[in-house]
């Protein structure tokens, strides 16, 4: 089944609020080989003017995972997860994510393109904090391979 072209432009309901935990930030930081003390040490982060440890630049992938799960679960999407390859990824931040943030992500499918048997889906997850202010936008292009 090909990817449904009518997905283009679809906006999904915001995800459940996600509370960024200090240990989650540290766990993620260690997993991406971060060595900067602001990622790991609350006192160093406070000394630099933050409320708590600062998440690495790609931490918003945790939020993006939740929105992509919404997309894959959409009954009419026609996206077979086993055929999905990650094409490219971008994070554009207004400010870094810090432990203690309560974040919500809203997914927009900005484009669906078909190239022969393959489809390219661009998914944009906009992450906002408890005040509604923009924190980061994660843009992911997924290549969905067609049937052989």
């Amino acid at each position, binding site marked *: 089944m090909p990817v449904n072209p009518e997905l283009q432009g679809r906006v999904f309901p915001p995800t459940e609020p996600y509370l960024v935990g200090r240990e*989650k930030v540290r*766990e*993620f930081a*260690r*997993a*991406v*080989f*971060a*060595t*900067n003390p*602001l*990622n790991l040490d609350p006192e160093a982060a406070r000394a*630099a*003017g*933050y409320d708590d440890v*600062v*998440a*690495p*630049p*790609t931490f918003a*992938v*945790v939020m993006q*995972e939740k929105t992509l799960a919404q997309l894959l679960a959409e009954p009419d999407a026609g996206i077979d997860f*086993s055929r999905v*390859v*990650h*094409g*490219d*990824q*971008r*994070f*554009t*931040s207004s*400010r*870094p994510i810090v432990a203690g943030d309560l974040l919500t992500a809203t997914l927009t499918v900005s484009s669906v393109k078909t190239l022969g048997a393959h489809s390219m889906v661009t998914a944009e997850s906009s992450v906002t904090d408890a005040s509604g202010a923009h924190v980061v936008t994660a843009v992911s292009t997924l290549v969905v391979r067609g049937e052989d």
Partner: protein
Amino acid sequence: MAAASASVPSFDALEVGDLVAERSFELTRDSLVRYAGASGDFNPIHYRDDVAREVGLPGVLAHGMLTMGLAVQPVVDWAGDPGRVADYQVRFTRPVVVDPEAGAVVLVVAKIGQLDADARVARVDLTVTFDDQTVLGKAQVRVSLG
């Protein structure tokens, strides 16, 4: 907001082509399992040889997002604060195959690609290689040094 720090690179001293940082990362299967748990991406092609083989892959692969996540770390250390990274993009061009015994070594070289004097933003371009081949394309980090 990014606070002032003694270790902030001086924007005015930078030139296009300057080497910013260089670092090698030794990935093992343990690194992939750790990243799966931290990120929530439990796709079995990142830890099961049988599943990787079944879908026609040369072996268990590192998560593209793990490669992206680690490749920016030398730039974070150079900038002195992860909060200075305003924008980061990559294209996934080749997989990193992680051998169960030997692991995989990923090399990152970061150089100044462009300087925006008005915004005081440095674009740092990353060359990320595994087995002498580039694994990320158009890997660019915009670092705010204002």
